[in-house]
Protein backbone atom coordinates (compact mmCIF):
# COMPACT_ATOMS: atom_id res chain seq x y z
CA UNK A 1 0.00 0.00 0.00
CA UNK A 2 1.31 3.43 -0.88
CA UNK A 3 0.29 6.38 1.19
CA UNK A 4 1.67 9.49 -0.40
CA UNK A 5 1.14 12.83 1.27
CA UNK A 6 -2.28 13.54 -0.11
CA UNK A 7 -3.71 10.10 0.66
CA UNK A 8 -2.38 10.37 4.22
CA UNK A 9 -4.23 13.66 4.63
CA UNK A 10 -7.33 12.10 3.06
CA UNK A 11 -7.04 9.21 5.52
CA UNK A 12 -6.90 11.62 8.44
CA UNK A 13 -9.99 13.30 6.96
CA UNK A 14 -11.79 9.96 6.73
CA UNK A 15 -11.03 9.17 10.38
CA UNK A 16 -12.19 12.66 11.39
CA UNK A 17 -15.43 12.13 9.41
CA UNK A 18 -16.07 8.85 11.21
CA UNK A 19 -15.61 10.50 14.60
CA UNK A 20 -17.85 13.44 13.72
CA UNK A 21 -20.54 11.09 12.33
CA UNK A 22 -20.49 9.16 15.60
CA UNK A 23 -20.43 12.23 17.83
CA UNK A 24 -23.93 11.71 19.26
CA UNK A 25 -23.45 7.95 19.61
CA UNK A 26 -20.17 8.30 21.52
CA UNK A 27 -21.60 11.00 23.72
CA UNK A 28 -24.65 8.86 24.52
CA UNK A 29 -22.37 5.97 25.53
CA UNK A 30 -20.42 8.35 27.76
CA UNK A 31 -23.68 9.74 29.22
CA UNK A 32 -24.42 6.25 30.57
CA UNK A 33 -21.16 5.75 32.47
CA UNK A 34 -19.14 8.95 32.24
CA UNK A 35 -19.53 12.68 31.85
CA UNK A 36 -21.29 12.71 28.48
CA UNK A 37 -18.63 14.52 26.51
CA UNK A 38 -16.59 11.87 24.69
CA UNK A 39 -18.19 12.44 21.27
CA UNK A 40 -18.23 16.22 21.67
CA UNK A 41 -14.60 16.30 22.80
CA UNK A 42 -13.31 13.96 20.12
CA UNK A 43 -15.25 15.72 17.36
CA UNK A 44 -13.74 19.03 18.38
CA UNK A 45 -10.30 17.40 18.24
CA UNK A 46 -11.04 15.71 14.91
CA UNK A 47 -12.07 18.99 13.27
CA UNK A 48 -8.92 20.69 14.55
CA UNK A 49 -6.77 17.79 13.31
CA UNK A 50 -8.43 17.89 9.87
CA UNK A 51 -7.64 21.61 9.54
CA UNK A 52 -4.07 21.11 10.74
CA UNK A 53 -3.44 18.24 8.29
CA UNK A 54 -4.93 20.16 5.36
CA UNK A 55 -2.55 23.02 6.12
CA UNK A 56 0.50 20.71 5.91
CA UNK A 57 0.29 19.24 2.39
CA UNK A 58 3.98 18.37 2.24
CA UNK A 59 4.33 16.70 5.62
CA UNK A 60 5.45 13.06 5.77
CA UNK A 61 3.33 10.53 7.65
CA UNK A 62 5.40 10.83 10.83
CA UNK A 63 5.07 14.62 10.84
CA UNK A 64 1.32 14.39 10.20
CA UNK A 65 0.88 11.96 13.09
CA UNK A 66 2.93 14.18 15.37
CA UNK A 67 0.83 17.22 14.45
CA UNK A 68 -2.29 15.09 15.03
CA UNK A 69 -1.12 14.10 18.52
CA UNK A 70 -0.21 17.65 19.53
CA UNK A 71 -3.52 18.99 18.22
CA UNK A 72 -5.53 16.38 20.12
CA UNK A 73 -3.69 17.21 23.34
CA UNK A 74 -4.62 20.88 23.08
CA UNK A 75 -8.19 20.57 21.77
CA UNK A 76 -9.92 17.47 23.15
CA UNK A 77 -10.07 18.36 26.85
CA UNK A 78 -11.14 15.03 28.36
CA UNK A 79 -8.92 12.09 29.24
CA UNK A 80 -9.02 11.00 25.61
CA UNK A 81 -6.95 14.10 24.67
CA UNK A 82 -3.74 13.10 26.44
CA UNK A 83 -4.43 9.40 25.78
CA UNK A 84 -5.00 9.59 22.02
CA UNK A 85 -2.49 12.46 21.85
CA UNK A 86 0.19 10.24 23.34
CA UNK A 87 -0.86 7.35 21.07
CA UNK A 88 -0.43 9.44 17.90
CA UNK A 89 2.83 11.00 19.10
CA UNK A 90 4.27 7.55 19.79
CA UNK A 91 2.97 6.15 16.48
CA UNK A 92 4.70 9.03 14.71
CA UNK A 93 8.18 7.75 15.60
CA UNK A 94 8.21 4.58 13.42
CA UNK A 95 6.56 6.59 10.60
CA UNK A 96 9.10 9.39 10.69
CA UNK A 97 10.18 10.47 7.21
CA UNK A 98 7.93 7.91 5.53
CA UNK A 99 5.51 8.60 2.70
CA UNK A 100 4.32 5.00 2.41
CA UNK A 101 3.61 2.30 4.98
CA UNK A 102 4.14 -1.45 5.02
CA UNK A 103 2.73 -4.03 7.43
CA UNK A 104 5.84 -4.12 9.63
CA UNK A 105 5.79 -0.34 10.08
CA UNK A 106 2.06 -0.33 10.86
CA UNK A 107 2.72 -3.05 13.45
CA UNK A 108 5.41 -0.92 15.09
CA UNK A 109 3.10 2.11 15.01
CA UNK A 110 0.23 0.21 16.64
CA UNK A 111 2.52 -1.27 19.28
CA UNK A 112 3.98 2.16 20.10
CA UNK A 113 0.51 3.77 20.24
CA UNK A 114 -0.84 1.10 22.59
CA UNK A 115 2.21 1.33 24.85
CA UNK A 116 1.71 5.11 24.92
CA UNK A 117 -1.89 4.71 26.09
CA UNK A 118 -0.78 2.22 28.75
CA UNK A 119 1.98 4.53 29.99
CA UNK A 120 -0.21 7.62 30.05
CA UNK A 121 -3.30 6.00 31.55
CA UNK A 122 -1.41 3.55 33.78
CA UNK A 123 -4.02 1.08 32.57
CA UNK A 124 -4.04 -2.56 31.56
CA UNK A 125 -6.45 -4.70 29.60
CA UNK A 126 -9.65 -5.66 31.41
CA UNK A 127 -10.32 -2.29 33.05
CA UNK A 128 -12.99 -1.24 30.54
CA UNK A 129 -10.88 1.18 28.50
CA UNK A 130 -9.74 1.67 24.91
CA UNK A 131 -7.11 -0.99 25.56
CA UNK A 132 -9.83 -3.66 25.59
CA UNK A 133 -10.39 -2.93 21.90
CA UNK A 134 -6.85 -2.01 20.87
CA UNK A 135 -4.88 -4.90 22.35
CA UNK A 136 -7.02 -7.66 20.76
CA UNK A 137 -6.90 -5.63 17.53
CA UNK A 138 -3.12 -5.55 17.66
CA UNK A 139 -2.91 -9.29 18.30
CA UNK A 140 -5.20 -10.03 15.36
CA UNK A 141 -3.17 -7.69 13.16
CA UNK A 142 0.10 -9.43 14.07
CA UNK A 143 -1.46 -12.86 13.46
CA UNK A 144 -2.56 -11.71 10.02
CA UNK A 145 0.91 -10.38 9.27
CA UNK A 146 2.54 -13.61 10.39
CA UNK A 147 0.18 -15.55 8.12
CA UNK A 148 1.40 -13.21 5.34
CA UNK A 149 -2.05 -11.89 4.62
CA UNK A 150 -2.44 -8.62 2.69
CA UNK A 151 -2.38 -5.47 4.85
CA UNK A 152 -6.05 -4.68 4.24
CA UNK A 153 -7.02 -8.16 5.43
CA UNK A 154 -4.86 -7.76 8.54
CA UNK A 155 -6.63 -4.47 9.26
CA UNK A 156 -10.05 -6.08 8.72
CA UNK A 157 -9.23 -8.81 11.21
CA UNK A 158 -7.91 -6.22 13.65
CA UNK A 159 -11.14 -4.22 13.37
CA UNK A 160 -13.23 -7.35 13.95
CA UNK A 161 -11.18 -8.16 17.06
CA UNK A 162 -11.66 -4.58 18.28
CA UNK A 163 -15.45 -4.94 17.80
CA UNK A 164 -15.39 -8.09 19.91
CA UNK A 165 -13.32 -6.18 22.47
CA UNK A 166 -16.04 -3.52 22.64
CA UNK A 167 -18.62 -6.26 23.28
CA UNK A 168 -16.38 -7.60 26.05
CA UNK A 169 -16.37 -4.17 27.75
CA UNK A 170 -20.13 -4.58 28.31
CA UNK A 171 -19.42 -7.50 30.64
CA UNK A 172 -16.89 -5.87 32.97
CA UNK A 173 -16.73 -3.20 35.65
CA UNK A 174 -14.78 0.00 35.01
CA UNK A 175 -11.80 0.51 37.29
CA UNK A 176 -10.24 3.45 35.41
CA UNK A 177 -11.58 6.87 34.59
CA UNK A 178 -14.81 8.61 35.47
CA UNK A 179 -16.82 5.39 34.94
CA UNK A 180 -14.99 3.81 37.89
CA UNK A 181 -17.02 6.07 40.22
CA UNK A 182 -20.05 4.00 39.17
CA UNK A 183 -18.57 0.63 40.18
CA UNK A 184 -21.07 -2.20 39.49
CA UNK A 185 -23.38 0.21 37.68
CA UNK A 186 -20.83 0.49 34.86
CA UNK A 187 -21.59 -3.14 33.91
CA UNK A 188 -23.83 -3.69 30.89
CA UNK A 189 -22.54 -0.59 29.11
CA UNK A 190 -19.96 -0.60 26.37
CA UNK A 191 -16.91 1.57 26.94
CA UNK A 192 -16.90 4.85 24.97
CA UNK A 193 -13.10 4.83 24.59
CA UNK A 194 -13.00 1.26 23.29
CA UNK A 195 -15.80 2.26 20.92
CA UNK A 196 -14.06 5.37 19.58
CA UNK A 197 -10.84 3.36 19.07
CA UNK A 198 -12.80 0.82 17.05
CA UNK A 199 -14.51 3.52 15.00
CA UNK A 200 -11.09 4.96 14.09
CA UNK A 201 -9.67 1.56 13.24
CA UNK A 202 -12.73 0.74 11.11
CA UNK A 203 -12.38 4.07 9.26
CA UNK A 204 -8.70 3.38 8.53
CA UNK A 205 -9.56 -0.13 7.32
CA UNK A 206 -12.40 1.12 5.15
CA UNK A 207 -10.17 3.81 3.63
CA UNK A 208 -7.41 1.30 2.82
CA UNK A 209 -9.91 -1.18 1.36
CA UNK A 210 -11.16 1.46 -1.07
CA UNK A 211 -7.70 2.90 -1.82
CA UNK A 212 -6.45 2.23 -5.34
Amino acid sequence: MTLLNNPAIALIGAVADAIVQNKEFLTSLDAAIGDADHGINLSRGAEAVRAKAAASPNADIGALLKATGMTLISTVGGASGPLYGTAFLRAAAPAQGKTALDGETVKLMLAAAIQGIKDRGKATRGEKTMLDALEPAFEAFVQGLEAQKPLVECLEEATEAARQGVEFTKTIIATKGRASYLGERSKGHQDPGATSSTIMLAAITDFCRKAP
Partner: protein
Amino acid sequence: MVGIVIVSHSAKVAEGICDLARQMAKADQKILPAGGMADGSIGTDAFKVSEAIQAAWSDDGVLVLVDLGSALLSTDMAMEFLDEAIRERVRVADAPILEGAIGAVVEASVGSSLEQVLSTAEGAREMRKII
Protein backbone atom coordinates in the same frame (compact mmCIF):
# COMPACT_ATOMS: atom_id res chain seq x y z
CA MET B 1 9.04 30.06 47.63
CA VAL B 2 7.41 26.95 46.15
CA GLY B 3 4.96 27.86 43.38
CA ILE B 4 1.46 26.36 43.28
CA VAL B 5 -0.52 25.41 40.15
CA ILE B 6 -4.21 24.45 40.26
CA VAL B 7 -5.39 22.21 37.40
CA SER B 8 -9.14 21.84 37.02
CA HIS B 9 -11.54 20.98 34.21
CA SER B 10 -13.25 24.26 34.95
CA ALA B 11 -11.50 27.62 34.55
CA LYS B 12 -13.84 29.02 37.21
CA VAL B 13 -12.93 26.28 39.70
CA ALA B 14 -9.19 26.77 39.10
CA GLU B 15 -9.45 30.55 39.44
CA GLY B 16 -11.77 30.31 42.44
CA ILE B 17 -9.40 28.01 44.31
CA CYS B 18 -6.50 30.35 43.52
CA ASP B 19 -8.54 33.33 44.80
CA LEU B 20 -9.31 31.49 48.01
CA ALA B 21 -5.75 30.25 48.49
CA ARG B 22 -4.26 33.70 47.85
CA GLN B 23 -6.03 34.98 50.96
CA MET B 24 -3.58 32.86 52.93
CA ALA B 25 -0.58 33.77 50.77
CA LYS B 26 2.32 36.18 50.91
CA ALA B 27 1.99 39.06 48.45
CA ASP B 28 4.70 37.80 46.12
CA GLN B 29 3.62 34.16 46.18
CA LYS B 30 2.98 32.48 42.83
CA ILE B 31 -0.36 30.66 42.72
CA LEU B 32 -1.55 30.02 39.18
CA PRO B 33 -4.69 28.50 37.69
CA ALA B 34 -4.67 26.16 34.69
CA GLY B 35 -8.36 25.51 34.18
CA GLY B 36 -10.52 24.63 31.20
CA MET B 37 -9.69 24.70 27.53
CA ALA B 38 -8.38 27.55 25.39
CA ASP B 39 -11.89 28.11 23.97
CA GLY B 40 -13.40 28.32 27.46
CA SER B 41 -15.00 24.89 27.45
CA ILE B 42 -14.72 22.29 30.22
CA GLY B 43 -11.60 20.16 30.01
CA THR B 44 -7.89 20.19 30.70
CA ASP B 45 -5.15 21.29 28.32
CA ALA B 46 -1.60 20.02 28.78
CA PHE B 47 -0.14 23.12 27.11
CA LYS B 48 -2.01 25.39 29.50
CA VAL B 49 -0.69 23.34 32.43
CA SER B 50 2.91 23.49 31.23
CA GLU B 51 2.64 27.28 30.76
CA ALA B 52 1.30 27.68 34.30
CA ILE B 53 4.10 25.54 35.73
CA GLN B 54 6.68 27.68 33.95
CA ALA B 55 5.01 30.87 35.17
CA ALA B 56 4.97 29.56 38.76
CA TRP B 57 8.56 28.35 38.51
CA SER B 58 11.44 29.26 40.79
CA ASP B 59 14.38 27.17 41.95
CA ASP B 60 12.27 26.10 44.94
CA GLY B 61 10.03 24.13 42.58
CA VAL B 62 6.32 23.88 41.88
CA LEU B 63 3.51 21.83 43.42
CA VAL B 64 0.58 20.95 41.16
CA LEU B 65 -2.88 20.10 42.48
CA VAL B 66 -5.37 18.40 40.14
CA ASP B 67 -9.09 17.63 40.16
CA LEU B 68 -10.50 14.63 38.27
CA GLY B 69 -9.09 12.01 35.87
CA SER B 70 -7.75 13.79 32.84
CA ALA B 71 -6.38 16.66 34.93
CA LEU B 72 -3.70 14.22 36.03
CA LEU B 73 -3.18 12.86 32.51
CA SER B 74 -2.80 16.39 31.14
CA THR B 75 -0.38 17.26 33.95
CA ASP B 76 1.72 14.15 33.20
CA MET B 77 1.72 15.19 29.55
CA ALA B 78 2.65 18.78 30.46
CA MET B 79 5.70 17.46 32.35
CA GLU B 80 7.01 16.05 29.07
CA PHE B 81 6.99 19.54 27.54
CA LEU B 82 9.16 20.96 30.34
CA ASP B 83 12.95 21.11 30.48
CA GLU B 84 14.38 18.34 32.59
CA ALA B 85 15.78 20.81 35.14
CA ILE B 86 12.26 22.14 35.75
CA ARG B 87 10.55 18.75 35.62
CA GLU B 88 12.76 17.40 38.40
CA ARG B 89 11.44 20.06 40.75
CA VAL B 90 7.72 19.65 40.03
CA ARG B 91 5.50 17.42 42.18
CA VAL B 92 1.85 16.46 41.75
CA ALA B 93 -0.06 16.18 45.01
CA ASP B 94 -2.35 13.22 45.68
CA ALA B 95 -4.67 15.50 47.62
CA PRO B 96 -8.15 17.05 47.63
CA ILE B 97 -7.72 20.02 45.35
CA LEU B 98 -9.18 22.81 47.51
CA GLU B 99 -8.09 21.74 50.99
CA GLY B 100 -4.73 20.61 49.61
CA ALA B 101 -4.21 23.96 47.90
CA ILE B 102 -4.86 25.94 51.09
CA GLY B 103 -2.48 23.73 53.06
CA ALA B 104 0.16 23.95 50.36
CA VAL B 105 -0.03 27.73 50.13
CA VAL B 106 0.31 28.19 53.88
CA GLU B 107 3.24 25.77 54.01
CA ALA B 108 4.95 27.39 51.01
CA SER B 109 4.41 30.90 52.41
CA VAL B 110 6.77 30.17 55.32
CA GLY B 111 9.50 29.11 52.91
CA SER B 112 9.23 25.34 53.35
CA SER B 113 10.82 22.89 50.94
CA LEU B 114 8.96 21.35 47.99
CA GLU B 115 8.76 17.97 49.74
CA GLN B 116 7.34 19.61 52.88
CA VAL B 117 4.75 21.53 50.85
CA LEU B 118 3.80 18.29 49.07
CA SER B 119 3.47 16.45 52.37
CA THR B 120 1.25 19.16 53.89
CA ALA B 121 -0.99 19.19 50.79
CA GLU B 122 -1.36 15.41 50.94
CA GLY B 123 -2.03 15.63 54.68
CA ALA B 124 -5.28 17.40 53.77
CA ARG B 125 -6.62 13.95 52.87
CA GLU B 126 -6.90 13.22 56.59
CA MET B 127 -8.55 16.52 57.49
CA ARG B 128 -11.83 15.98 59.34
CA LYS B 129 -14.70 18.39 58.77
CA ILE B 130 -17.09 16.97 61.34
CA ILE B 131 -15.74 15.59 64.55
